[in-house]
């Protein structure tokens, strides 16, 4: 097309200038580009955390001996738990039901006696199984705490005591295992997905809804020029948002940035190409802003949040859904994005992902240019 139209780039530039003017005039676009990254960065940096601590836990001490009080004190001092002592199971039960407690620990009668006599007493933990993750982590943390409490007691009695086996866990790239190291890069992906699919979902539908499409189509502009020039400003906005996010992540939340800006730029560009194309295709297909936004939410935002492996492990999903994740562009973004912060440039891993994303971009672009017809009505 461009070969036949000597004014291809000039016409594209005209549309681009118009898009910029419209973006400039609508404060909501800047709200999305600036405010949204800040809000998301804050939420994923400060509010959402996978490190369970401060879990509201009841404690029923039926033994009330020095050993049981010692255990109670150990639990209370541990930041994993927020211990509230209860007198009986009957008292704790309604609180567990209402959600005021996420679990309670019962230290049995005869706890100290059994320990002294060498029989293992059974400490009971009742969890609120409706909060599966909290329940799992509560049990694991309690088990770990009991073990270290036992070892500390053994050392008090026998200075030479050592446990037979111990585990020394190390975490590469993230020694403190801070969940924001994982969540913040993921949130950047969400920001890009949103700017890409949501904003562009609106722009083509709006031309149809307002009747300005008829004016554009009657001019000599070619459809690829129209599509390209509509995408470009939003690509720049997407990059700008990414830059804001990276700044907040590194300066605000102290994330390392071990890779190169070039890698970040290439990965982001490839991803933006994919989601911008997706949004534009939705927009051109529905010609209706409301339906467009619904589609963009369902096919753009939610899969990026839930099926990209950013929050939930893809390996743990049912097999059919694991297959489905292959058509979610964000799946190819999250691993390189996390790595460029925490690891460095792993080109052997980046390149296949970039290629996959560019494939999505090319596919959507071709579909959009076909979806927009010269013919109206």
């Amino acid at each position, binding site marked *: 097309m461009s070969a036949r139209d000597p*004014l291809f780039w*000039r*016409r594209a*530039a*005209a*549309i681009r*200038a*118009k898009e910029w*003017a*419209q973006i400039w*005039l*609508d404060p909501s676009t800047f709200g999305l580009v600036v405010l949204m990254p800040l809000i998301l960065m804050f939420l994923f940096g400060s509010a959402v955390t996978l490190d369970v601590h401060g879990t509201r836990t009841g404690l029923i001490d039926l033994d009330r001996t020095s050993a049981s009080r010692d255990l109670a004190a150990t639990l209370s001092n541990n930041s994993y738990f927020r211990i509230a002592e209860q007198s009986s199971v009957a008292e704790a039960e309604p609180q567990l039901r209402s959600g005021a407690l996420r679990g309670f620990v019962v230290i049995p009668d005869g706890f100290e006696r059994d320990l002294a006599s060498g029989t293992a007493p059974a400490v009971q933990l009742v969890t609120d199984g409706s909060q599966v993750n909290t329940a799992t982590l509560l049990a694991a943390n309690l088990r770990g705490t009991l073990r270290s409490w036992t070892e500390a007691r053994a050392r008090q009695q026998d200075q030479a005591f050592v446990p037979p086996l111990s585990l020394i866990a190390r975490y590469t790239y993230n020694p403190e295992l801070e969940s924001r190291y994982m969540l913040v890069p993921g949130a950047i992906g969400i920001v890009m997905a949103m700017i890409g699919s949501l904003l562009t979902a609106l722009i083509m539908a709006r031309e149809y809804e307002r*009747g*300005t*499409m*008829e*004016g*554009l*189509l*009657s*001019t*000599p*502009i070619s459809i690829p020029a129209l599509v390209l020039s509509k995408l470009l400003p939003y690509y720049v906005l997407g990059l700008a948002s990414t830059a804001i996010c990276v700044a907040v992540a590194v300066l605000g939340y102290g994330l390392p940035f071990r890779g190169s800006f070039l890698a970040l730029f290439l990965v982001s560009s490839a991803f933006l190409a994919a989601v911008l194309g997706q949004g534009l295709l939705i927009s051109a297909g529905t010609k209706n802003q409301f339906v467009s936004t619904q589609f963009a939410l369902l096919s753009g935002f939610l899969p990026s949040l839930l099926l990209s492996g950013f929050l939930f492990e893809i390996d743990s999903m049912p097999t059919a859904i694991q297959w489905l994740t292959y058509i979610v562009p964000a799946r190819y973004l999250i691993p390189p994005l996390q790595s460029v912060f925490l690891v460095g440039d792993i080109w052997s891993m980046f390149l296949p992902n970039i290629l996959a994303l560019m494939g999505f971009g090319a596919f959507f672009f071709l579909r959009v240019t076909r979806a927009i017809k*010269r*013919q*109206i*009505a």
Partner: protein
Amino acid sequence: MAEAPLLRLEGVSKRFKGARRGAPPVEALRGVSLNLAPGRRLGLVGPDAGGKTTLMRILAGLVAADSGDVELLGGPADQLDRSQVGYMPQGGALYAELTVRQNLELYARLRGVEPQDSPERMSHLYRLTGLEPFLDRAVGKLSGGMRQKLALACAVVAAPRLMLLDEPSVGVDPVSRQEIWQLAMDLSGPETSLVWTTNILEDAARCDEIVLLHEGEIRYHGPPAGLAAGAEGRCFVRPLPDGVRRKALQDLLLDRGVISGRIEGGNLHALARQSAAPSGGNWLPVAARPDEGFAAMLDDGAALQPSALAEAFPLRFDQPDQPAIAAIGLTRRYGDFVAAQDISFSVRPGEIFGLLGPNGAGKSTTFRMLCGLATPSAGRGTVAGRDLSVAGAEARQALGYMPQKFSLYADLNVATNLKFMVGSYGLTGAAQASAIERVVTALGLEPFMATAAGLLPLGVKQRLALGAAVLHTPPVLFLDEPTSGVDPLVRREFWHHINAIAARGTAVLVTTHFMDEAENCDRVLVINRSQTIAQGTPDELRHSIPGGAVASSLEVAFFSLIDTQRRVLAEAPA
């Protein structure tokens, strides 16, 4: 014809599938054949839904014909060189939030004109359109006339060989209409061809040839004079004194032998079905105008019935001296700009009061203040005795409002729109049903009940909007350019209803750009540049022009009054 035609259509047909599943397809065009030579100007007229817009879109290469040959600029339609065609879609396809300059530069560059490289062309366009002082104003804030001029400029910025202008003068005052035509002439060269669709026969009559499209077929193609010939010998006139003309017109329209009638100056005009004068009175034969030829050609032979719309209105003459609408020193300022300055008038029950003035003169602002859509900066307005600033909802209950721009829900069907409106007025149960039934029957909306309002032909849209405004038979009716863009037959029907509704004691406030319509008003107020420049009956206005002469029609008086103000302001010390 020696020269190769610029446009050649041979037996072109186009049908669209029905709006709903199962609905019969709509035959937009049926075997249309048409040639247009370079340098010729074609006026395309015809009633709404007659196929004008479809034909224009085919010419612009935006709709493919189902059958028949289409040759555009000497080649097949799908190889059209779009840079040679300047198409202005209805409404202009402008971006309301962008400025005048941004819109024009966008279309200039899309059409291959780089504004930086040809500043003289751009400034020439700005000068011709008179948009120079408003380059940085958002298009949404322009008056209707200026918007149309800009849309025209956007379409023809690259000096195309073919100009396709769909309704460029709709909703535009007579002065601007003249200017838009002139603009199109100034922008076209000797070889430029022009297709101009309109429902205003005066505009079409300026073209070299006229095509009348009705029900998808060409009913007339020839010189403008030939159209009037169809009504020759069937036009009559009779002078009538002030005050009785409206009643006489109403009676005339109910005459089975009469197609249409109008008031002009002190005279009542009639177009008869046969070459015999209507009964009664001393009718004199008179020369036919193109619009009368148009009406005669489209006449379906049915006589108007007494307005069923009006019959439901209760008689409201119990307080004839109490003004139903009163504007007392209404003023509206936007920053330094005064949009309406000290406007005062009152409308009695049963009176039709016309608000006249060019686009942007302050009519709409005054209107909006009286409907409670804008708060006056000074002064106040009352409707049915209620102050709008104190009793908003009660005052709004007493008025029916038909906005200038179609404001019903485009994606909802007619029935749903009417149900919503009737419920909004608080009508319930049987009253709801009968109000809808009445409006639907009186305005012939029955076939469209299931059609989305946005897909209706313009004339039906306007009928629906009128119907929605009178569902609750309000004592006060506000009509903002009710007939803009509709064909002459629908206009005749509208004024028939309006006259009948006023006769029940309803106060009607109306704005219009058609001076022949304004002749129907009992009294008119002329606003220009935010100020009242004249107020009185049409006769009084005709007698009030400077120089002592009597204007032959309200139109002449109108132009003279505006011109006088312009000169006075120009002479006044700055």
